[in-house]
């Protein structure tokens, strides 16, 4: 009979410690209340049907004490909880990338190296893993109990979460936000492996090239390459080196070309027009490309770096230069 979930990530013990702290305080409080009620109920039970006890109206001192002291205790809950929450908000710069797309009712996972799997996630232990989450349809939630992490996957934007696995093993992956008929079937397994096993796993099994290569293929297939020429000005902006840079827009604003920006530009090209270009040249690709495909394109565009700047040709240790916001800017916002 399991009583506590396995603690298999770097933050799991922290969360558990906080949980134990709250549990102990709660148990003490509950015991205190139950015991007091029990003692009073027995000790002051009615002894004659007509008795009238003496009145006690209250005590300001007691009231203040039992308002302020619990509040101070609760502040420690708040403080500790917020600390864990914020400390784990942003992934470390050396986190490896994984991309997961939630779709009624499965998780599609892809790695920059090109592996793709469904309802399975393989990660090495001892290394931070950043998962970029996207949804094809409704809100899902990516939940790995053993790692004590969970994040909703909201359609129309990218969410990210990260963790560092610490123990090899196979752990549950759940969808925690109700998403329709087979919600309870939207489950899978996370396999945490020793780094060497992980390297073996990565290289075993055929793949159609890295994610960037798959993205490049898509770039050709969808006809992107006819206008977005790589090295000379076509009808559309050059994409080499654009990732992570500041883009001047035609209405005077400027934005950082991050994942959300590229995604929006593919799906709603007219939303942000680069200075010097006209709207309505590029058609929308909404409904023609899957979220997975968009992620491949993003990884491809990311790989198109100008020489000399850090890039992530084969994924792995991506340091795209961007401070990644765990709660990425809302699509279309800024």
């Amino acid at each position, binding site marked *: 009979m399991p009583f506590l979930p396995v603690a298999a990530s770097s933050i799991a013990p922290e969360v558990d410690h906080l949980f134990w702290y709250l549990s102990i305080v709660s148990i003490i409080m509950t015991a205190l209340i139950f015991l007091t009620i029990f003692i009073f109920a027995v000790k002051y039970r009615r002894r004659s049907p007509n008795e009238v006890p003496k009145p006690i109206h209250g005590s300001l001192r007691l009231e203040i004490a039992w308002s302020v002291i619990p509040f101070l205790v609760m502040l420690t809950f708040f403080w500790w909880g917020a600390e864990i929450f914020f400390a784990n908000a942003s992934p470390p710069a050396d986190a490896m990338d994984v991309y997961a797309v939630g779709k009624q009712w499965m998780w599609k996972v892809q790695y920059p190296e090109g592996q793709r799997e469904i309802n399975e996630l393989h990660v090495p232990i001892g290394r931070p893993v950043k998962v970029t989450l996207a949804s094809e349809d409704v809100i899902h939630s990516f939940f790995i109990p053993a790692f004590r992490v969970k994040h909703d996957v909201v359609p129309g934007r990218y969410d990210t979460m990260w963790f560092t696995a610490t123990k090899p093993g196979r752990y549950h992956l759940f969808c925690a936000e109700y998403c329709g008929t087979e919600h309870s079937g939207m489950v899978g397994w996370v396999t945490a492996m020793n780094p060497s096993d992980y390297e073996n796993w990565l290289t075993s099994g055929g793949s159609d090239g890295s994610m960037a290569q798959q993205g490049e293929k898509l770039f050709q297939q969808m006809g992107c390459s006819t206008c977005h020429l790589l090295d000379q000005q076509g009808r559309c902006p050059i994409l080499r080196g654009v990732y992570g840079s500041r883009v001047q827009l035609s209405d005077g604003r400027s934005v950082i070309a991050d994942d959300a920006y590229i995604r929006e530009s593919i799906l709603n090209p*007219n*939303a942000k027009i680069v200075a010097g270009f006209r709207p*309505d040249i590029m058609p929308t690709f909404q409904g023609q490309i899957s979220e997975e495909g968009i992620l491949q394109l993003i990884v491809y565009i990311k790989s198109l770096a100008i020489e000399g700047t850090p890039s992530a040709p084969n994924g792995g240790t991506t340091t795209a230069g961007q401070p990644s916001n765990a709660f990425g800017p809302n699509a*279309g916002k800024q």
Partner: protein
Amino acid sequence: MADTHAVATEHEHSPHLRHHFDDMAQQFDSATLGMWVFLLTEIMFFGGMFCAYSVYRSMYPEAFASTSQYMNPKFGAFNTAILIVSSLSMALAVRAARLGQRKALQLLLVITMIFGLAFLGVKAFEYHEHWVDMKVPLFAGHWDYSQAPQFARQAQILFCFYFFMTGFHALHMIVGVGLLTTILVMAHKGTFSPEYFTPVEISGLYWHFVDIVWIFLFPLLYLIGHTRQLI
């Protein structure tokens, strides 16, 4: 806990006094307080839409501003002025009821209703313009924003809120005109007196509230982005 003596006050019983109230003042206070509490719920009802509107406007300021091309602030301002006049005549109607001026009350109620209907007429005309302009995203064939494709999707949201907010407001106006008709009939029958004019008072509160909603809708829907040429 209490001695149950009678409250030793005898009132002249007005025919309008309901059995469970002690006196007319209590009945009047209850009715007006009830109306105020009802207006609280109305504020929050519109408030939900104002909230969603604010969020989207903060997200998409440019797209929202681009819609100004299709809103005619002159109509909006004209309608505001009309509503303010109707509010004035409503306030004067309540005053007349209080003073027991029956003829003046009826006249002022009629004026209020005429202005209320004029407002609805202008609104209907504007809706017609939007329909012709293809600016009704609620119906698939009546939405076209090709003039500014970069804002097309987000401008839909504004137009949806435009129709919901002004639509709910117009619905309230229609209910208000209905209320005033009832009051007018009652006034005609001589129901009201300086001792009993509660229905006039609470209808007045309602009418002014509907006016206030419009006072906010006007700048928020009609007066965005007129200083910039976005399209």
